[in-house]
């Protein structure tokens, strides 16, 4: 049998499930209260976890002698300069550090991972006896890239290729929709199981 706190938690959870779903009918105060509760919970959770990250990744190494850790701490604090108009520009420094690092990593990984390798895989599939399927994939790759060409009007050969590419893209979009739909349906089943478990616990099951 569930304890009182567990039961209370499940009751709160069940209320929040229905308050969230109620928005599908129309806006209402229950939805709004639930939304505000989530806002508080989400920010609290995020702050706590980040405080833990600061403690583990920066503070502990710093007091352990890793003096370099002062730099990211100061850069992080500079973000707050945005709150005052006269100092707002200082926030560009930490932003630039992050963008520089992000861009460097992205550029280095993207050339092979998402361009050259993808072309190579398309080719080797054909080479390794992928048969008609590998040819269909190759046609899909070439024609769908053509769809994204901006400097040529989509007429003639480019237009025909782009048109075929669009069909491939549409099938892919449909498949993506389907993958998400069934996932979300699973989530709905999970929430209904939660409510069922609450009702069972409430009845002393």
């Amino acid at each position: 049998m569930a304890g009182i706190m567990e039961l209370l938690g499940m009751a709160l959870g069940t209320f929040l499930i229905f308050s969230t779903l109620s928005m599908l009918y129309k806006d209402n105060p229950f939805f709004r209260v639930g939304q505000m509760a989530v806002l508080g919970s989400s920010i609290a959770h995020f702050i706590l976890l980040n405080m833990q990250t600061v403690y583990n990744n920066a503070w502990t190494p710093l007091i352990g002698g890793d003096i370099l850790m002062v730099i990211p701490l100061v850069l992080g604090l500079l973000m707050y300069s945005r709150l005052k108009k006269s100092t707002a520009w200082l926030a560009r420094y930490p932003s630039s550090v992050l963008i520089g690092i992000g861009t460097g990593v992205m550029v280095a990984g993207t050339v092979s991972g998402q361009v050259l390798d993808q072309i190579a895989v398309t080719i080797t599939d054909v080479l390794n006896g992928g048969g008609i399927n590998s040819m269909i994939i190759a046609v899909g790759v070439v024609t769908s890239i053509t769809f994204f060409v901006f400097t040529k009007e989509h007429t003639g050969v480019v237009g025909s290729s782009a048109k075929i590419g669009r069909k491939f893209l549409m099938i892919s979009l449909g498949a993506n929709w389907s993958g998400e739909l069934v996932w979300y349906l699973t989530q709905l089943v999970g929430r209904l199981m939660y409510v069922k478990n609450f009702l069972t616990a409430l009845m002393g099951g």
Partner: protein
Amino acid sequence: MIEPGSWLDLIFLALMTVLTNYYLKKATDGTLPNLRTIPAIAAIEEGVGKSIEEDKPVHYAMGASGGQLYSTLVSMTLTSFAFLKYLSTICARLGARLIVHMPYQTESLPMIEAMARDGYIAEGKEDEFRVEDLRYYGRGALAWTQGVTASYAQEGVGLNLSIGIFYSDCPISLEMAKIMGGLNVGGTGRWIMVYAFAMMCDYVFLGEEIYAAAAIVSQNPTMLSGIFVEELGKFFSIGMTLIGVILALVGLNIAPLLGV
């Protein structure tokens, strides 16, 4: 000294750098050819007009996780910033209220405020910029989608422009804006979520189109130059795939040339 198998990557990057410089020069001279039109760009201003007519705010959504500065998706974040600045300029010029639904990454918030404010400054109306219309919801799609939906319901939605890094948050935000009568315009570079935009938006930027559109709306020659560089990359990809497949059919493998 050079990581084995990285030569082609480096050559590719070096070529892109040289070409960017070349097209930058052409862009500055005003000799770049025209780009095909993307209807969704014109829809943005139309949507701001609609919002004013209906006396409803314009919403800008970057995605619950759309503020990634140090990830591999940083390009999409920067693209989103370009659209935000463009939108805030139009809103300031036409007098529409702009609500920005910010992502959870707090490190991106200073830049978001800067971009949103920039448009108002450009139109000489900084006093009309409202910081309280920059909305923050904490971490996760849960708080973000709930907050955005509540905002649509409570404050109305004229235009909803959604550009950036979207995960499983846009199916709610886009559909709710649609149901509540908003004009949906948007796109993401994350192919997996493009379906939601294709199905729920009145005007959509399909995948990679957001990069091209950002360059066009920025009217900045440096950004336009990038489109031509990536176009060459596309022709290279098409060419390599075609040649590679044809040669593969006769048993020749050019994949090792690609570093694989």
